[in-house]
């Protein structure tokens, strides 16, 4: 417990019950996001302060349909409630969140929780939606039937939580000390739970209402056999279009700030070694990463809005058949889509896949989806080597190459998944049982909180692993200094050149020169670092002129076309991201699978880059 909290309250509920929105409404921005030790189930804790001044730590547990754990998420929920979760003290009370628009579906979990005999209360969420649909629930009757206190709340409007907060502050103390409610009448089998839930729901429902019209109408369009997939692909196209075009302006601003900062540092710092470290190492390196923040935020904005609106589950429905072709199911689509932003949240999103084999397969192929960190590498090489002209009248050749690299990654991911599911991870096809939640207007505060958390994770990466690798690279390429009377550029004599020349024996067959080999070393930390590293290597290895001309022009003169294409293809596969491997280790909890991931990706990178090199060489001579 963080000091000062009088109570610990665990939020429990089915997925899609609006639990996280309620959590945000109760705790505002005051929340901590981390992980439970040993598993990568996200741990979200926030502080709620009641008007009377009581501090309550609210723990947002992962959504579960039942207490019989089927997935890692459900296991954590189960263990926290029973006080058996490492890294979490047992909660003083449970707040079970129930969607008022589908009581019968949500009540079995309430009954199961009640059987545990812990202090608990129930809150009816989405009361506004229920009212809109004409559903009327007798809260008193529900409380009587359940034998538990029931409070109404509306998570999406903050004002609606005041009744809940008041009840919490007045009842938590008595609830904590009260003997557990009598649970002997609750059935222990699933059928019985279901029946009892339906009986209670009927007893507490005054008016059944009519179905949410918007959901019905929207689904007729979005889940239409032909229009549905067309709209999905249109949305995905719009998303990628937005990532490139909307991000352009803020990226220019960041670029200008970096240049400005470099100029300032150059003029203010007298010591040449320190100046070089700051200007060429730190500012250039970290700047080259921070520049992707706009693209990542735009991609996540789309993903968060699609999720909050209820559309994402429809996308999984529409993609299910395609995913079934490689032995996965529609659920794997969401992690793979997130991986276009970054494989880390993608791999973490695979937690919602209940089959262990499907989850492992999804994690293994997630790094093949073209993440935004590859963009700078692709953009640099394409700008340098692919002519900026139109093919077939209207389509830009550069854009076409970029698009094919994306398709190449997707095809590779599907192929690897198909192979894994037929060999190492063979098993019976897993059923798809997916809830399609009601459509909702996304709550912008929730979206903003989600975006803020992503931005923080990304910036922490830029400040940590990337900063350190840039400093190390700078040191490697600056020391030892060139001997007096040296004829070659200084980097030629540095430790980096040594390493690069050593590695070159491995990479020469696929067309890489020693400069590329050097850049691959810091590029192991994160893909986007390779651009900065190439900048550092070539800026340091050339004359003043080389620094003046742009990196793209430098590369055009230094590399052949086969080398450039080979380098592009290398980046489709190579697992050059320590954070991804670290997250894969945590999620799979297995070194074997982590090494397998790194190994197969490097092997494919080497084979395909080599093939590209020799084929291109054969064609252009």
């Amino acid at each position, binding site marked *: 417990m963080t000091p000062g909290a009088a109570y610990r309250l665990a939020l429990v509920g089915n997925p899609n019950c609006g639990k996280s929105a309620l959590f945000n409404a109760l705790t505002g921005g005051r929340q901590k996001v981390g992980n439970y030790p040993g598993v990568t189930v996200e741990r979200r804790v926030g502080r709620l302060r009641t008007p009377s001044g009581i501090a309550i730590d609210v723990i947002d547990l992962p959504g579960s*349909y*039942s207490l*019989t754990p*089927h997935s890692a998420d459900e296991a954590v929920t189960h263990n926290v409630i029973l006080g058996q979760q490492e890294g979490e003290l047992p909660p003083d009370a449970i707040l079970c969140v129930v969607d008022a*628009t*589908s*009581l*019968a*579906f949500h009540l*079995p979990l309430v009954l199961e929780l009640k059987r545990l005999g812990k202090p608990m209360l129930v809150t009816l969420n989405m009361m506004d939606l229920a009212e809109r649909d004409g559903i009327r629930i007798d809260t008193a009757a529900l409380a009587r039937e359940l034998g538990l206190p029931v409070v109404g709340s509306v998570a999406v409007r903050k004002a609606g939580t005041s009744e809940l907060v008041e009840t919490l502050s007045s009842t938590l103390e008595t609830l904590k000390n009260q003997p557990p409610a009598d649970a002997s009448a609750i059935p222990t089998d*699933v*059928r019985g739970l*279901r*029946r009892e839930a*339906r009986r209670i729901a009927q007893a507490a429902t005054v008016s059944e209402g009519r179905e949410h019209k918007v*959901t019905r109408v929207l*689904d007729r369009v979005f*889940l*239409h*056999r*032909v229009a*549905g*997939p067309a709209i999905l692909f249109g949305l995905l196209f719009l998303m990628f279009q937005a990532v490139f075009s909307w991000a352009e302006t803020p990226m220019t601003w960041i670029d200008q700030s970096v240049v400005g900062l470099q100029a300032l540092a150059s003029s203010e710092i007298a010591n040449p070694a320190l100046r070089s470290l700051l200007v060429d190492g730190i500012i250039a390196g970290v700047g080259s990463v921070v520049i992707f923040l706009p693209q990542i935020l735009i991609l996540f904005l789309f993903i968060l809005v699609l999720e909050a609106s209820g559309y994402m*589950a429809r996308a*999984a*429905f*529409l993609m*299910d*058949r395609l995913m*079934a072709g490689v032995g996965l*199911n*529609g659920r794997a689509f969401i992690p793979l889509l997130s991986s276009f932003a970054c494989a880390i949240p993608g791999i973490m999103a695979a937690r919602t896949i209940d089959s262990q084999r499907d989850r492992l397969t999804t994690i293994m192929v997630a790094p093949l989806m073209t993440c935004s960190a590859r963009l700078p590498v692709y953009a640099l090489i394409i700008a340098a080597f692919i002519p900026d002209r139109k093919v077939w009248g209207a389509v830009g050749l550069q854009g076409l190459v970029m698009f094919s690299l994306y398709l190449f990654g997707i095809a590779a991911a599907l192929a690897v998944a198909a192979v894994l599911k037929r060999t190492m991870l063979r098993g019976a*096809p897993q*059923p*798809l*049982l*997916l*809830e*399609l939640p009601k459509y909702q207007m996304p709550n912008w505060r929730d979206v903003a909180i989600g975006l803020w958390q992503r931005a923080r994770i990304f910036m922490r990466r830029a400040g940590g692993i990337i900063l350190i690798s840039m400093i190390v690279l700078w040191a490697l390429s600056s020391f030892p200094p060139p001997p007096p009377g040296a004829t070659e550029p200084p980097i030629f004599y540095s430790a980096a050149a040594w390493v690069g020349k050593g590695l070159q024996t491995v990479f020469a067959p696929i067309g890489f020169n020693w400069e590329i080999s050097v850049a691959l070393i810091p590029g192991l930390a994160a893909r986007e670092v390779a651009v900065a590293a190439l900048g550092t290597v070539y800026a340091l290895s050339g004359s003043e002129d080389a620094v003046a001309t742009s990196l793209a022009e430098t590369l055009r003169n230094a590399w052949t076309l086969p080398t450039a294409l080979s380098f592009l293809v290398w980046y489709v596969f190579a697992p050059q991201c320590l954070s991804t491997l670290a997250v894969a280790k945590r999620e799979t909890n297995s070194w074997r699978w982590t090494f397998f991931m790194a190994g197969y990706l490097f092997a494919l990178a080497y084979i395909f880059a080599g093939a590209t090199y020799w084929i291109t060489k054969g064609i252009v001579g």
Partner: protein
Amino acid sequence: MKVSANTRTLGSLRPGQTCRVIGLADQAVSPELEERLLRMGFAEDAAIEVRHEGLFGRDPMAVKVDGVILALRRREADTILVEVDAPK
């Protein structure tokens, strides 16, 4: 389980049809699948409305149960025995 002339599997139904669950085809369902299907509401007497179906092989399908819309594949839907309601 009262099997009648109107007994079908849920997997054989098309959008617009409504039905009532009479049970699971025991021999075709593993205990885990049975638990999950029951958990999601495919229990005896549940009223179901078939809503949507996918493009290829009309798979998967979306049905409404207990006020919630669920997606499932024909393969699993074929293990759920239902009695089809007469068209209104």
